[in-house]
């Protein structure tokens, strides 16, 4: 099988590439990139006007499979990833049942092979059943392909258990992904504590309830030597804690979601929009500005969507009863393109670093690049495509997007995974 993608602007800072070029692919790998790259026979596609990037990865998605297939499954989740421009995702373990032993990890990995072209990696539970009380079988899961461990969806409340888990996890040389939430401070909080919680009469979820566990996790990373990756960081002070940890050379990384980058609590009004109910909650305008700055600087390593699909009937409830979360796979790239790359805040080079290279590096996965010898995982975007979020429906089974109705410019049109198209001219294959 040979394929030639022609006349693209090809960008990849990892190989110092930014030029109008062709990409030649054979047997799932890139064989050459350059103005003269060619193949003897095979499929040729003229992609003039488009931009080729190393395949993007979203290291924080909830695919709900097994157990909650009415929200999402590996096929629909994989298709949503392709539509959004991702070649690769990392599925969180808070399914039903929770992924907490090796057989469950291989179940998901094996099912994913037939369900979708998108590469689906699996994170296993850090503690058994996400209960935060005893260690999950990390060794068994690691041997069966888990690439990280996390109790995502809940914070580990007991610092002693977390220390034990990080000590134990270190032997596998994979990171602990940490959902930072001190439940004793959050209580029944559903929105950021402050102006909006007061105005709407809702219980507040204070920033300090996230910052305190971040500080603790950093201290435990130093103590144990285990790498910790702070998930969905949402506050300016949290970012400062990570910045200080990095300056000291500690094995600490973090991610930010598009909704925390581009929405703040003021979007919530007396309509009580459950589509804006997130965990952690939308914070202040000043926080969003600090997050954007930190993403540009690299204090925040990567963008991850925290894709959290929920059925319509679950979100159409009283605000306090509705589940937390927004979908994100189909909008994350477009949002970063529209809100940061287009206005010149973030270069394509940095976008690639934050959405393709950093996630793989954090997880210790094989890097991808636009260079001969690399696996042919490629994301191709049209920087000028205008679209309205949600207008044409969703690949995801769920429609709970915080950005529905937003007009965005810039979108993935084609995605190649190992040389095969999972998205072609905007159609999921």
């Amino acid at each position, binding site marked *: 099988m040979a394929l030639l993608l022609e006349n693209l602007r090809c960008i990849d800072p990892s190989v110092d590439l930014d030029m109008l070029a062709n990409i030649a692919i054979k047997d799932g790998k890139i064989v050459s990139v350059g103005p003269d790259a060619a193949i003897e026979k095979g499929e040729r596609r003229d992609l003039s006007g488009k931009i080729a990037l190393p395949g993007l990865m979203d290291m924080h998605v909830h695919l709900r499979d097994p157990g909650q297939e009415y929200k999402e499954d590996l096929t629909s989740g994989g298709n949503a990833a392709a539509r959004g421009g991702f070649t690769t995702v990392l599925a969180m373990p808070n399914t039903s049942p929770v992924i907490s032993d090796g057989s469950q990890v291989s179940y998901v990995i094996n099912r994913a092979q037939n369900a979708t072209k998108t590469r689906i990696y699996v994170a296993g539970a850090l503690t058994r059943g996400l209960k935060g009380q005893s260690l999950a079988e990390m060794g068994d899961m690691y041997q069966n392909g888990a690439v990280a461990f996390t109790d995502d969806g809940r914070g580990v409340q007991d610092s002693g258990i977390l220390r034990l888990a990080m000590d134990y996890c270190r032997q596998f040389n994979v990171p602990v992904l940490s959902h930072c939430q001190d439940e004793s401070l959050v209580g029944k909080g559903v929105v950021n*504590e402050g102006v909006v*919680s*007061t105005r709407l*009469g809702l219980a507040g979820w204070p920033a300090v309830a996230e910052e305190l566990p971040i500080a603790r996790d950093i201290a435990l990373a130093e103590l144990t030597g285990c790498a910790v990756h702070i998930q969905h960081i949402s506050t300016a002070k949290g970012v400062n804690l990570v910045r200080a940890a990095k300056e000291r050379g500690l094995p600490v990384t973090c991610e930010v979601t598009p909704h925390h980058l581009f929405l703040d609590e003021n979007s919530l009004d007396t309509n*009580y929009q459950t589509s804006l109910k997130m965990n952690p909650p939308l914070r202040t305008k000043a926080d969003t500005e600090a997050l954007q700055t930190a993403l540009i600087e690299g204090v925040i390593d990567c963008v991850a969507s925290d894709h959290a699909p929920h059925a319509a009937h679950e979100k159409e*409830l*009283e605000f*306090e009863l509705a589940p937390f979360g927004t979908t994100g796979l189909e909008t994350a790239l477009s949002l970063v393109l529209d809100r940061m790359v287009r206005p010149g805040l973030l270069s394509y080079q940095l976008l690639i670093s934050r959405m393709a290279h950093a996630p793989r590096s954090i997880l210790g996965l094989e890097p991808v690049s636009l260079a001969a010898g690399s696996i042919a995982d490629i994301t191709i975007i049209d920087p000028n495509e205008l679209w309205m979020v949600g207008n044409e429906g969703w690949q995801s089974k769920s429609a709970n997007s915080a950005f529905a109705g937003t007009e965005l410019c810039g979108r993935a049109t084609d995605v190649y995974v190992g040389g095969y198209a999972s998205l072609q001219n905007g159609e999921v294959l």
Partner: protein
Amino acid sequence: MGALASKHLLAIEDLDATEIGTILDIATSFKEVNERTIKKLPTLRGRTIINLFLEPSTRTRTSFELAAKRLSADAINMSGSASATVKGESLVDTAKTLDAMDADLVIIRHAMAGAPQILARCMRASIINGGDGKHQHPTQALLDLYTIRDYFGSFEGLKVGIVGDIAHSRVAGSLLPALSMLGVETVAIAPPTLLPACPEVLGTRVSSSLDDELSSLDVVYMLRVQQERLERSPFPSLREYAGLFGLSVSRLQSMKKNAIIMHPGPINRGVELSSDAADAANNLLLYQVNAGVAVRMALMYVLLGGESDGAVA
């Protein structure tokens, strides 16, 4: 068109100062009706009013029911235990079901903030918020305003102190912004654990010393204190709360001469109100209850299309 810009009363901000004045004026004429032997007007004959009370309530539900009946509306009560919600039906589906029955006005009391907004989105009826979670209780604010205006003649120059669990009080959630809208100076008085995260949103100043504030207040509005919880109580004991924030006999003495005591009820004798304060001549608690029926009649009247004149035929 009716006398109000909004079709609903979901939160006190749905009204402006003029509209509040209009409702209070109309309530005055209904209050006179309530003093007659025959307490009934044909004003809302043939209209259907549903009291959807999904959280336990006696006084508010009774007040709305009386208001509807005195205006000759067909008033139906649906309470939490009798409604479909315990069978697992969503509020949206309950609302659509009531909508299919052609209700004209629905009063909703619900334990969750924003529930009235859900009804307003999926029903044709006018919606009155009868108390939603820790958010608002706008008809309580209206009857409180009625009481204050009736007693003092106007709102001018008054200073109102609200004492108690401001953070979790829907009564304060409506009354503080309402007073702010009318230009009345307010102070929220409570231990810091019972004060809201951003009091300025409610248009108020805060204080944690009742003794510092008491002598300057024209209205001392005491909120009901939650019964003691074992875990994570925001104050150490009812005894300590009563000592710091209760209206004791000695504090009664330091009130301004013409000041009044108010309370949304039900009261905890010996906690926020000493028995002396509960039974004091300047405690307008029962007057508030009385005004409540007339104010709710006035609100139903204007929401269902009545003009500001000619309410009482």
